[in-house]
């Protein structure tokens, strides 16, 4: 099911990942293959402990696999040192976390500025770009407030704004709707889906929330450390064990 190279956003091939000592080894990924196309929103689903988070971490370059290759927008990650991986994450990735991870002592706009400031952008430029993207996600007027003063949906919008402010090609969302109610979750996913519609972008979402499966272009199901199948239609999934 391999796609032409110019259409591939990321590709993980034959990835092995295990933790612990050789005597007490826990296998997290076993010859896992996973691929996504540009302009696609792909979801990664599966029961707890099947290796979703590990695979996501490998693609994000926060974990280095023991075997296999990982390529993200044409850049091979396997073999890169920590510094190069850090640079890769800084330039190429945007993160939306399950618990938002917004810094409570900073204002909304300051939280959104973080990725730009990590890149070394001037403060004023970062501020202007953060304001612009907050406007886009519908948070104009809330810029100077603290994240804790916002609703869950608004906080997730801030997180999305933070993930996108530096225009990364790959957006990684880890359980983005788990802390949100159904309607808010649907709004957030619609926004994420709209953002994925660019040939220079790809969105991968790890989720247990079957209510949002309809927003996916494709859904990859994981089982025992590998992708067991990829479907285009959520109805084809058996969600009883998710």
């Amino acid at each position, binding site marked *: 099911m391999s796609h032409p190279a110019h259409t591939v956003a990321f590709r993980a091939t034959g990835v092995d990942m295990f933790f612990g000592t050789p005597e007490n080894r826990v296998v997290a990924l076993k010859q896992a293959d996973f691929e996504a196309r540009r302009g696609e929103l792909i979801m990664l689903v599966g029961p707890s402990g099947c290796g979703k988070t590990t695979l996501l971490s490998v693609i994000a370059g*926060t974990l280095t696999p023991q075997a296999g290759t990982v390529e993200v927008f044409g850049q091979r990650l396997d073999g890169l040192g920590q510094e190069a991986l850090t640079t890769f994450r800084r330039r190429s990735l945007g993160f939306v976390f399950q*618990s938002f991870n917004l810094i409570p002592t*900073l204002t909304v706009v300051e939280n959104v500025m973080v990725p730009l400031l*990590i890149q070394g952008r001037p403060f004023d430029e970062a501020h202007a770009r953060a304001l612009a993207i907050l406007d886009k996600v519908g948070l104009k007027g809330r810029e100077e407030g603290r994240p804790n003063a916002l609703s869950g949906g608004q906080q997730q919008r801030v997180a999305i704004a933070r993930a996108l402010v530096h225009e990364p090609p790959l957006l990684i969302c880890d359980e983005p709707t788990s802390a949100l109610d159904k309607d808010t979750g649907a709004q957030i996913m619609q926004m994420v889906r709209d953002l994925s519609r660019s040939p220079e972008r790809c969105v991968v979402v790890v989720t247990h929330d079957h209510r949002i499966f309809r927003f996916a272009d494709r859904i990859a199901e994981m089982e025992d450390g590998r992708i067991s199948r990829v479907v285009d239609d959520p109805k084809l999934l058996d969600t009883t064990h998710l």
Partner: protein
Amino acid sequence: MYRLALNMLFGDRAKLAMLLCGLAFSALLMAQQSSVFFGIMSWTYTPMVNIRAQVWVSDPMVEQVNDAKPLRDTDLGRVRSVDGVAWAAPLHTSFVQARMQDGNFKLITLVGIDADTFAGAPAVLSQGRIEDLRLPDTVIVDEWGAALMGRMSVGPDGKPKNTPLQVGDTFEINDIQARIVGICRVKRAFTGGPFVYTTYDRAKGYTLGARRTLSFMLVEPQKGVAPAELCDRIERDTDLKAWTSDTVIWSWGERSLARNTFWWFWTNTGIPFSFGTAVLLGLFVGIAISGQTFYSFVLENLKYFAAIKAMGAGMGVIARMLFVQAFTAGLIGFGLGAGMAQAIGRVMIEKGMPPFVMYPQILWATFALVLGISFVSAVIGIIKVSRVDAASVFRG
């Protein structure tokens, strides 16, 4: 990122307040205790401040100014004959008991100065004239002594009342009358006894039985002769010990009697150990409180630092953020602590007790130690953050 690092620090006001309290308390303790220590130590060479002369000559065995070993009166002539000496005057210092009119006894520092030149006389007289010392049985008492030796009585409100000695009052030294003709303003001495000035010849009378009464010689160099150079000449020609009157204790050198006195007390008493313990306590309290609070601040923000790491910030950036936070807190804490120490010092100086001398070096040392505390706190935080796996942000 550093601006955001500061906003993170200032955003958590409760933690910041705790952090600043620890640092400020530490700075206060270190600066205040050091200043009191140097204040007390500055009293050890008080005679050098109160009795002004460019060169002091003593017995060769003298180690410090409070330990005079009597000289022969003929030594004065020998010193006067040294090339480069403009003049030399005798000085007597001793601790004697003075009996007040109410029968009470007080230990005093008796200072006998040359009646012709008044060399070594107090610089400031708040009452009386120095020339009146030439009158029979006369003394000049310092303000502190006048109050200390004052008359106790019962005031109209029934409370004890102290009436300081005045010009015209009398007391006795070795059963010889001493009539006060002046009140002077001098620095207090380590021994606590008041300074009582009289003439050198009269001091001989007050110290009946003492075979030798010449404690020191006060010497003025001729124009163009440096005090240190004259000291060399006096020592070479007389075998006596000559000292400069330099009271800057920070510089090194063998010639300064004040500096030798300072270091004599430093090495022969438990004062530095006592105050050093208090300063160390301040340092440890600072490290404990600030380190713990900053560590707690880092722990609370750990998942955010992990997120920042995941977003692509290297440990270098995060370490610098933590240093900025720790050093900013250190700077503010130092400012508060040093400011409080200054305020307390002002009150102490006004009251005169305990002595308080805040050298710039004390502030610099306190500043360095507070920054050291901040550095340790930051390093503890950096170690913690460096051990956080960026992948942990995906674990909920």
